[in-house]
């Protein structure tokens, strides 16, 4: 059984390193795609990265400071609610301001193509997040046979925030790649 986990870890690490390497290369602007004026969607992508990054860090800090035993009730539950409301409000304000300032169309056909492609990055991050949760919870609670039910909330919120982070990352990456509407 242990050998299976070791092999899974090696394969998983290889995949993760490859995926992260590709992400880093994609985020680096191509010389011919650099220095362009930003579009409203691109600005929203950067704002989304900042907001989801901060909310993600807040979530991690909450888990480290408060622990996982209070997930269903108490300060953890309140903390998660405040974080999510703050993140959502910040994003809504950013979206409204960006839309008002843009004057013209917020999304044109290239933006829509980039937005559609960003779904693949979101899906990859959601999948990686679920794999990480499965491996960690299995390893930690293997002997006990059951994991605290509160973890389900944490899995949901972390996957939600991770998905939003992935979507924003996909948008930012999309503006650094060549794209066509028939791609």
């Amino acid at each position, binding site marked *: 059984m242990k050998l299976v986990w070791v092999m899974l870890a090696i394969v998983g690490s290889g995949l993760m390193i490859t995926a992260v390497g590709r992400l880093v290369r994609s985020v680096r602007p191509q010389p011919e*795609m650099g220095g362009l004026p930003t*579009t409203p969607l691109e600005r929203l992508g950067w704002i989304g990265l900042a907001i989801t990054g901060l909310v993600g860090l807040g979530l991690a800090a909450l888990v480290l400071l408060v622990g996982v035993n209070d997930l269903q009730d108490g300060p953890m539950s309140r903390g998660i609610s405040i974080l999510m409301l703050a993140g959502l409000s910040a994003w809504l304000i950013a979206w409204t301001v960006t839309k008002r300032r843009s004057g013209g169309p917020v999304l*044109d*056909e*290239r933006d829509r193509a980039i937005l559609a492609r960003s779904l693949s990055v979101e899906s990859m991050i959601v999948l990686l997040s679920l794999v990480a949760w499965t491996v960690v919870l299995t390893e930690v609670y293997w002997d006990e046979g059951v994991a605290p039910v509160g973890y389900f909330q944490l899995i949901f919120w972390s996957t939600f925030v991770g998905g939003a982070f992935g979507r924003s990352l996909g948008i930012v990456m999309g503006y650094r790649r060549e794209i*066509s*509407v028939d791609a």
Partner: protein
Amino acid sequence: MPRARIANRIRQLRFEHGEITQQELADQVGCTRQTIIVLEKERYVPSLSLAFLIARVFGLAIEDVFEFVDDE
């Protein structure tokens, strides 16, 4: 399907038609200025409808603005 690129004369045509700015052209066809810039750099292949709209701004047929170039 063989790899090909879509070349265009948008930049040249902008100057030949009263030096239309990228922003003005973008406003007329309903896209962002960044899309016009990447189109001129041939880093983006537009939809057929956007290609038609751009050609219409210059009063030309689509094939007078865009050209299919075989890379092989």
